[in-house]
């Protein structure tokens, strides 16, 4: 086991990792940018090393500085968290070369799964169902159009390097195809310097269901049930639940087995997530694999009782998984609400600034993962997520009730947040009824869906 781990991240997830390490008796090294001198992860870790100016390219994305800090602090492993360098194959490779354990899968795997067309191809070869679409990348509008005819409209146009809705368009028919293709491609060229596109059948009103995977060095692979992340605003997850109301025990087994099969097919190791689209008729299709810990991992922890970060560290240190598939039991229902520093009244514009007062809820089955505190100044340079509020109840109804109560207790003063928006969702009839596909927000909160 490691004696010291460097946490190559900031904010809530860095704090989460430091806490897990502390629980394991592992010393922690935080790295921080000049803007994060007073950030909780900096203050909480056993050691903290400043790695550069506020801009992430100069700090949290600067591989050389992070590696140098790791060597200087003599940490044996790096936990990359999510975002930043967590899915950077080059970084994982560098760690390997410098005799540092990268807590995550191998560089080759990150690379393979990071390229969406290649990931899709791999999965198809492994017999995992995928959304009908282009087998090969496509670059020209005319060729793409011919392909779209074969796939059948509506068609989703996606940039190979895209993400977060960038480089993505829906075409409803041949008449709007070319314009949409060109727009998506232009966005991708601008954003990622890549004009590689692919197409797939657009699934109407789908649910976003993802399966948590854990795998160790010994070839053990388990799934830890699903998370329903269908409630999204402009392709950004807003809140997540586990288990999903749309999934029966039988379907869970079927999808879980498929997820395990997919992970095995690529020889996966460490924590990963297989994302599926689930259509109205309960057909599911592989979308992509995330080769890192996810923001919403706590809902899985709440219903399985496992600590995923600890599990990640153990597996990276060469220990076997602590559970077998049979031992994994889904108990009760968990919901996570993401609280962000953003103003719903102004198109969810990020609004950093000084938090003058914080009051967090507590009690049985209520969990708060956050890095904020009273008098903390939210820097404008990074992601706007402030806090994850997670509740665990015996069933969905009680979890919702608990979340309503907890949201009602949560106070963040000084800056705008989406807290009230979350409260509205939690109290919405449609949410209670479980009409929660990916069109939930555009349908029930049209003013916020834009």
């Amino acid at each position: 086991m490691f004696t010291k781990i460097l946490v190559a991240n900031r904010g809530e997830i860095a704090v989460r990792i430091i806490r897990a390490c502390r629980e394991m008796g592992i010393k922690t090294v935080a790295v921080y940018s000049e803007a994060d001198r007073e950030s909780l992860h900096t203050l909480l870790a056993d050691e903290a090393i400043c790695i550069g100016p506020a801009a992430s390219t100069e700090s949290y994305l600067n591989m050389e500085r992070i590696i140098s800090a790791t060597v200087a602090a003599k940490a044996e492993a790096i936990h990359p968290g999510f975002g930043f360098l967590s899915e950077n194959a080059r970084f994982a490779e560098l760690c390997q070369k410098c005799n540092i354990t990268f807590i995550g899968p191998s560089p080759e795997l990150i690379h393979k799964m990071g390229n969406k067309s290649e990931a899709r191809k791999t999965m198809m070869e492994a017999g995992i169902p995928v959304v009908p679409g282009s087998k090969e990348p496509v670059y020209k509008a005319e060729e793409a159009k011919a392909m779209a005819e074969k796939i059948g409209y509506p068609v989703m146009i996606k940039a190979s390097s895209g993400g977060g809705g960038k480089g993505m368009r829906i075409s409803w028919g041949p008449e709007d195809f070319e314009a949409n293709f060109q727009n998506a491609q232009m966005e991708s060229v601008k954003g990622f310097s890549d004009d590689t596109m692919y197409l797939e059948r657009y699934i109407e009103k789908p649910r976003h269901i993802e399966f948590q995977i854990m795998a160790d060095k010994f070839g053990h692979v388990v799934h830890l049930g699903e998370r329903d992340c269908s409630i999204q605003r402009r392709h950004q997850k807003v809140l997540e639940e586990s288990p999903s109301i749309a999934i029966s025990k039988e379907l869970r087994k079927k999808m879980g087995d498929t997820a395990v099969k997919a992970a095995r097919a690529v020889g996966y190791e460490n924590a990963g997530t297989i994302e599926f689209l689930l259509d109205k008729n309960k057909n599911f299709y592989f979308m992509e694999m995330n080769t890192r810990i996810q923001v919403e991992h706590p809902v899985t922890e709440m219903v399985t009782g496992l600590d995923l970060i600890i599990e990640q560290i153990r597996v990276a240190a060469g220990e076997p998984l602590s559970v077998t598939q049979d031992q994994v039991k889904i108990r009760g229902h968990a919901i996570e609400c993401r609280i962000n520093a953003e103003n719903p009244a102004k198109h969810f514009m990020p609004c950093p600034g000084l938090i003058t007062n914080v009051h967090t809820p507590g009690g049985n089955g209520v969990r708060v993962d956050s890095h904020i505190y009273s008098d903390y100044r939210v820097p404008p340079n990074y992601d706007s997520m402030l806090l994850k509020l997670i509740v665990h109840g015996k069933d969905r109804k009680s979890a919702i009730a608990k979340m309503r109560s907890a949201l009602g207790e949560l106070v963040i003063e000084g800056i705008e947040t989406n807290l009230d928006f979350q409260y509205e969702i939690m109290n919405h009839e449609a949410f209670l009824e479980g009409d929660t596909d990916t069109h939930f927000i555009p349908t029930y909160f049209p003013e916020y869906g834009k």
Partner: protein
Amino acid sequence: MLRDMFKKTYTLIDTKYRSQARQEPNVPEGLWRKCRKCGEPIYGEDVKNNYYICPKCKAYFRVHAMRRIEITADKGTFREWNREMEFSNPLDFPGYEEKVQAAREKTRLNEAVVTGQCLIQGEKAAVAVCDARFLMSSMGHVVGEKITLMVERATREGLPVIIFACSGGARMQEGCVSLMQMAKTSGAIKRHHQAGNLFVSVLTDPTTGGVTASFAMLGDIILAEPGALIGFAGPRVIQQTIGQKLPEGFQKAEFLVEHGFVDRIVPREEMKETLGRILKMHARSGQEAEAGLKGEVNVETILPGVETAAGAVDKSEDELPQGGKTAWDHVQLSRKSDRPVAGDYIEEIFDEFMELRGDRYFGDDGAIIGGIAMFHGRPVTVIGQQKGKTTKENISRNFGMPSPEGYRKALRLMKQAEKFGRPVICFVDTPGAFCGIEAEERGQGEAIARNLFEMSDLKVPILSIVIGEGGSGGALALAVANEVWMLENAVYSVLSPEGFASILWKDSKRADEAAEVMKVTARDLLRLGIIEDLIPEKTPASGDNLGEIAMEMDKRIGNFLGKYGKMSSGELQAHRYERFRRI
């Protein structure tokens, strides 16, 4: 407010997780490099995969000879020539052998240059690559000998030569023997040239001293890497000698382009492709032109093809399209700012235009552009007087008024075309040669005269098309051709109508009258037999009908090349001579 308030990790618990001591993290030697320009640490792999260019600040690192070959040659095609050469110490210079030995061990090279043959994008070439790690790639006997042997063999085998130059200059330890290598290599290049073979010189950082003053500057085409230091005397020496601070960018590749000594700056990532294109443009497959060069002169057979003033007069009036415009209308149309310029036609008609710059004496004139392009798969040399479209562009193009260095560049490119048997196509569009002190200082008259003199017997077909203003001697210096054509609204005259009116009538306001009597329009000149053809403009040429006009030109150029491509060099020379002789 929370600083130092938290308890740190209590590490005595949880001993079951403690295990064997692990190796400490460390950064292996050579994983990072430090960029000498920006000082940032960079990952060696990134540098290697990025053509040895700093991924952060884009600075160029010097490339080892073998790496250079690796990024330039088609995979696995390089065959080294004269790998082992015996060390020579002509002056018995003390300590020299040890120095060379040390360099050999460090670089694992026999000497400072690697020579051989390879394919570049499928085209065979002989190459030499200097390696700066080896005594600053100074040119001693072995370097000079290897280059000479390589060039000689290339000459024998009819291979193009590419030399990546990089050098501190002469090898001091070899004294005058080193100096003589300059003459030796230059002599070999001259023979290579005389045999009609291509030599592309690629200047990399740094190219100085005796290498600059010999083979490096003798390329038919000279390319340079961005920012490379290129000069004869080193900047420090110059600064100490003259006791002045040197200007920013002095002796950099960009400076040399500006001063006419380098054709193009080619970013390293485009070098292979650029060399491949150059080699293809000089490929020896299209030998028909060369056959023509050797052909016998048969003046009788070509004379009927020469249209003279006498021959053209009987063209009936109705054959010529009537525009219903006055001569002055044409003058004004020819000068309109939205009229397509030479570059527009070049882009429309030709493929893969590769601009080559500089006169090799003084500068590069923006008023004339020229280079090699493909016309339906056949390499041609295209030259044009280039006007600007915006004020800024017009300033850099000097409003299409060439300076002597422009004409000298044009002539250099024509001579290059002659050497490689490429037809020359000129686009004429100038108010006149630049009228200024500097132009006179550098011999404007001489430059124009030299073009008329040399063009008169150039061994390849020449076609000139007046696309706008054909202003006097400044236009004629690109129009001593086998045929001269004009666009319908172009004009060609001995002087501007304004100038004519002011000289003859002391009143430049009577330019419109002058235009009429001067007979400057395409129709007038066709009637006079000064030009051979008129290309119609249904509406005055502009961006809108550029494609249409270019298509027509394309067709006619095809016919021109078909007709003149068959002629021998003697026939072409005689034809051109007679064309002017009869006027």
